[in-house]
């Protein structure tokens, strides 16, 4: 059945075909790259040259423009993975598998960056690289969950079967993450109520908020770009593996 004689499908079913998905979304890639670059250029200019120093923290306040977007993405990416997991289990949408697999390493990367920039920021302001504070601890646990999911993806040989099993685990994690977050907050306020870091304490002036928002969108679009590209790569990787398998079978016959 060629593409012309195929029954009319809506876009949802049409992107279920990996090849069609790549063809449809490839034109999106370059505009996304350009938009991300432009946002980064503007955001970095604001962050470095056009925003004031903090009266207490000095230049180190600029770490915030990298730290906060990364921390936001560490949670946003898990949201994307949860929705993809639902897509895999409920609709059995083939691209949901690919989206789930492509998002996991990106989520781990953004979470690790959030922790890294956070500790760089913590050293001059709090005098320590690491504190067992509620937020930091729950982010660390989130990183462990991401790494566990990546290890799980690598352990399976059959990626199609892996997708559904991992989707189950992703959903279990999604139910658990709020509980972990809550319990960790309870735990750390129990032990050290004085040193709990309150991000909503200081009111932020607009001169800091504008670069923060720009960087926030820049990082979000960076994720969207990388995610789309990683999905394309995964589609290609599966195609290569399929061809190799066919070649190996042909060689044996």
């Amino acid at each position: 059945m060629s593409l012309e004689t195929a029954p009319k499908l809506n876009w949802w079913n049409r992107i279920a075909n990996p090849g069609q998905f790549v063809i449809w979304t490839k034109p999106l890639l370059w505009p996304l790259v350009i938009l991300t670059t432009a946002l980064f250029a503007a955001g970095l200019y604001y962050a470095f040259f056009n925003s004031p120093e903090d009266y207490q923290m000095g230049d180190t306040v600029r770490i915030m423009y990298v730290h906060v977007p990364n921390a936001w993405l560490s949670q946003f990416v898990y949201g994307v993975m949860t929705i993809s997991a639902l897509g895999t289990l409920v609709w059995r949408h083939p691209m949901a598998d690919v989206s789930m697999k492509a998002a996991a390493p990106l989520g781990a990367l953004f979470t690790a960056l959030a922790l890294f920039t956070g500790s760089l920021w913590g050293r001059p302001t709090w005098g320590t690289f690491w504190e067992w504070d509620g937020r930091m601890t729950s982010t660390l646990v989130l990183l462990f969950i991401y790494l566990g999911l990546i290890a799980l993806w690598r352990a399976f040989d059959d990626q199609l079967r892996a997708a559904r099993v991992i989707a189950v685990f992703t959903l279990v994690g999604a139910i658990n993450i709020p509980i972990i977050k809550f319990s960790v907050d309870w735990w750390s306020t129990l032990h050290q109520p004085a040193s709990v870091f309150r991000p909503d304490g200081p009111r932020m002036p607009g001169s800091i908020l504008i670069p923060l928002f720009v960087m926030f969108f820049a990082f979000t679009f960076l994720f969207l770009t990388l995610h789309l590209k990683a999905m394309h790569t995964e589609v290609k990787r599966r195609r290569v593996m399929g061809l190799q398998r066919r070649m190996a079978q042909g060689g044996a016959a």
Partner: protein
Amino acid sequence: MTAFRALLFRELRLALRGGGDMLTLVLFFVIVGAVVPFAVGPDRELLARIAPGIVWIAAFLAMLLGLDRLFRPDHEDGSLILLRQAELPLSMVIVAKLIVHWLVSAVPLIIASPLLAVLLSMEGDALWRTIVSLLLGTPALAAFGAVGAAVTVSIRRGGLIAPILIAPLSIPVLIFGTGSITATQSSAAMLFLAALSLMALALSPFAAALAISSAED
């Protein structure tokens, strides 16, 4: 219901006749706890302060140790496929396995925990709270463990991956478990622990059943 009971007895018989597994588990639990004083020094005050944490870590590790025999033998000899064909829903099969898993791998630890508590110079109230907190919290550990074991059952090297998947999920159990021994609001922590166990027990059979049935078809 008869099928459920039959399965329960089958699992129990298999676990009890499987040899010294239970004894090994208890030994592991006590030895992990007893090694700590060698590492941190035999200071009684310090030991009494960190004892709740040690008891819970030892229990957590011992429960991880027994996970691999939850589904793997049945997966390897094919009886898991037969159980999937049975009239009993797979989630009920998992409930039966979970109950037996708790009976053979958590109850012995709870019985042995006073011994460990005495070794770590816990006294009076703390000792009772340890037992109660283990009774309330180990079902949640077993339930999370069942999900981890179900997710990794079809992987050959799954025994290594299950613990790193389960450990982050078990953090609330450890927090509230040690909290209910030490903290001033220990009754609140115990309620949270019980709530966690109930929720984990209610949801995990379905998650584990879903994972097993999607791994096998």
